[in-house]
């Protein structure tokens, strides 16, 4: 666990309501099932990471041992147990993304933020992490920043997104190649009468 820990943690009243809503979903005696959403709430409230105090608060709320909550928090990679930057950049480097150029995305990260894999930038704005498949292989390569997916990246678009974030702007979420969600890269080949503007220009063997 992180060595420097806040001495205490408590849910904001708004998050407490949410937590109680999650807990109430489960039958009496099965409150422990709410451990994952509560950890997520704590992570969001605490700037992207879960302190030890939060683990103990959640253990108390769900009447379970701290070690059991700690086990869950360490098992799932999406819970962070040490501080992360304001923008938590997760770059997929699994096979499809790697074939489509995830190395260039990582380079772009290094160039803009100065961070290699697993590092946090000095200004505390970025943490860059290589992760396993995030399930957007169709639009590879991709990265997740915070809750948002940025897809169909190349060096230039990845750099642009990161620069925009650095400047405090809000870059466009989703595919950077102009396609709608995960439709074929060359345009749609069916339902073309309903969405004529998204139809494939020719044949559509993409």
């Amino acid at each position: 666990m992180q060595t420097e820990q806040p001495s205490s943690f408590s849910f904001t009243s708004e998050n407490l309501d949410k937590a109680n809503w999650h807990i109430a979903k489960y039958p009496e005696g099965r409150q422990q099932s709410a451990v994952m959403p509560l950890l997520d709430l704590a992570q969001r409230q605490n700037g992207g990471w879960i302190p030890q105090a939060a683990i103990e608060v959640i253990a108390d709320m769900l009447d379970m041992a701290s070690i059991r909550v700690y086990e869950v928090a360490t098992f799932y990679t999406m819970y962070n147990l040490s501080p992360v930057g304001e923008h938590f950049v997760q770059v997929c480097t699994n096979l499809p993304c790697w074939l489509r150029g995830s190395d260039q995305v990582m380079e772009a990260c290094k160039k803009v933020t100065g961070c290699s894999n697993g590092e946090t930038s000095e200004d505390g704005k970025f943490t860059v992490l290589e992760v396993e498949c995030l399930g957007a292989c169709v639009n590879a390569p991709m990265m997740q920043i915070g809750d948002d997916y940025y897809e169909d990246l190349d060096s230039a678009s990845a750099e642009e997104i990161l620069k925009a974030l650095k400047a405090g702007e809000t870059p466009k979420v989703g595919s950077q190649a102009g396609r709608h969600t995960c439709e074929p890269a060359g345009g749609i080949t069916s339902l073309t009468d309903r969405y004529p503007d998204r139809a494939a220009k020719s044949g559509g063997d993409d």
Partner: protein
Amino acid sequence: MPKITIDGEELEVEAGMTVLQACEQAGKEVPRFCYHDRLSIAGNCRMCLVQMERSPKPVASCAMPVGDGMVVYTDTPEVKKMRQGVMEFLLINHPLDCPICDQGGECDLQDQAMAYGMDHGRYKENKRAVEDKHMGPLIKTIMTRCIHCTRCVRFSTEVAGVTDMGLIGRGENAEIVTYLDQAVSSELSANVIDLCPVGALTSKPYAFMARPWELKKTESVDVSDAQGCAVRVDSRGPEVMRVLPRLNEDVNEEWISDKARYWVDGLKRQRLDRPYVRGKNGKLAPATWNEAFAAIAKATKGVSGSEMAAIAGDMADCESMLALKDLMTALGSANIDCRQDGSKVDPKVRASYTFNSTIAGIEDADALLIVGANPRWEAAVLNARIRKRHLMGKFPIAAIGPAIDLSYPVDWLGEGGDVLAEIANGNHPFAEVLKTAEKPMIIVGSGAAARPDGASVLGLARQIAEASGAVSGDWNGFNVLQRAASRVGGLDLGFAPGEGGLDTAGILDGVTSGAIKVLYLLGADEIASKDLDKPFVIYQGHHGDAGAHVADVILPGAAYTEKDATYVNLEGRVQRGQLAVFPPGEAREDWKIVRALSDVLGQTLPYNTLAEVRQGLVKANPVFQGIDDIQAAEWGEFGATGGVSGAFTYPIANFYMTDPISRASATMAECTDEILGGGEGKTGTDG
């Protein structure tokens, strides 16, 4: 009952069994690491794979319930190949450090690798390394060796009832840890060392001391508390190297407490290895046996029987108590007592001082009232049995005494005796709970029975037992939780005040007033009197503890590992301990010392061999006939009527130091420091 065919052999098994258990019943050996009969099923090591007809994939037999008509194979070439594959995976990250591993020679992985291992490894990449964890003064960790079977996590959570251990991370990064690197805060923690199938958790005090094949194994019983846990004493030459639990389903299943396991280093320190006589200068000086006996003969000359007294301590064996009782009787003294804590249990009614429900019987009970006892410290393994019963469900537990963590939820009714009286009068809601229960249990602590008003405590408890139907047919729910290994045996053979004799309190009054001129302490070190310098004190025992300090003559005896001796556990089960090593120096087996002394005093006792002493035991009480048996105690009148006032307190202040052996043990001192925070400023527990 489902029928299952295993390797062509059809057998009927109980519904709800697992395939692995069925294979065992069929006499087939199935290798396993994570599966353990007394723990929940994890199914994560995959070593127990078997082949099953109509199943496309191999089946983990430990996690598969039997079904009717299953056809299972455990010895086909395919099964062997599957297990070899699992073994290869397990060995990928397991270091090849068997030559320096303490588990070597008693390692499940080593043994099973002989059957399923390959002659070479195919894995050329780097092995993973894991940082060792701190788990307290008893458990040494080499976590790189861990194969993540999670037996230790399941034991500590389920059996010991502490939530200190866990498995964090996942996949290759999985690690066994204690929360925040704390010591495991259980009295049963060291059992995880036995459970660990590899050398990840080994014994810290025993590290690099011996190899299992060098040790002489002696089956014996433990005397660190009154449960009489079955133990195996491993010795090399004159030294006891370690103590391990032995299987005894009726008493300790396969667990022992940390004290029973690790107090043995105390057997090497502070030992009395020769007789001593207090000289004219007031200092104890080494002497020969003849000089010591002569000093006793001189001191007892002209002293009448009524001016002599004897008290037996907590670890005295039955043979020596019988010899001393016979000697005192021959000398005309009825002032003998084996209840050095001043307990008010009735020596004439056996049911008043034994654990009548029996330890295994706890699992049949359906309501429990604990009166002034801390079973977690007074009988740690028995406490695990209560927890086991709690986990089965529908078992209301209430207790009278200061609230403590017993590892299961307890309804704390209050601290004082008034609550006990209320339940006895039927004015308390819990009286109704006991009444509606079919097999209610009441456990009275030995500390509660030793209070000045202990007789009233016992009387009220008897009243509750009778009113709630706890004594009926073959069920007796009245229990006294003794904590001294000698107590029940001593009372059984009549080491209690005879006609007109004084009990412990009377003897100590006599010591203060000068009425008692000669006091014989048989390993009695916990005497609450400041005036022991007044009479002539003979101390017979094995450690230079409190009793030896006040003695005028010291007769060096044998510790429990150094004699063939009989003990009766708190249930009234007669058990035999065996000699593992010889007593040090000139020390002798205890009954022989008393026998030799009787000769010098002109009252020669009528036995010359151990067999003859044991015949004497049977003559004193027929219960000594049945070794490893319990003879049910007859119910009778005992206790006193009267109020009980004031709060109950627990007799043990420090679990790790309760007797001369554990007080001399360095390991127990370390446990006191780290786990109980006894060392000033050494731990963070005192803020």
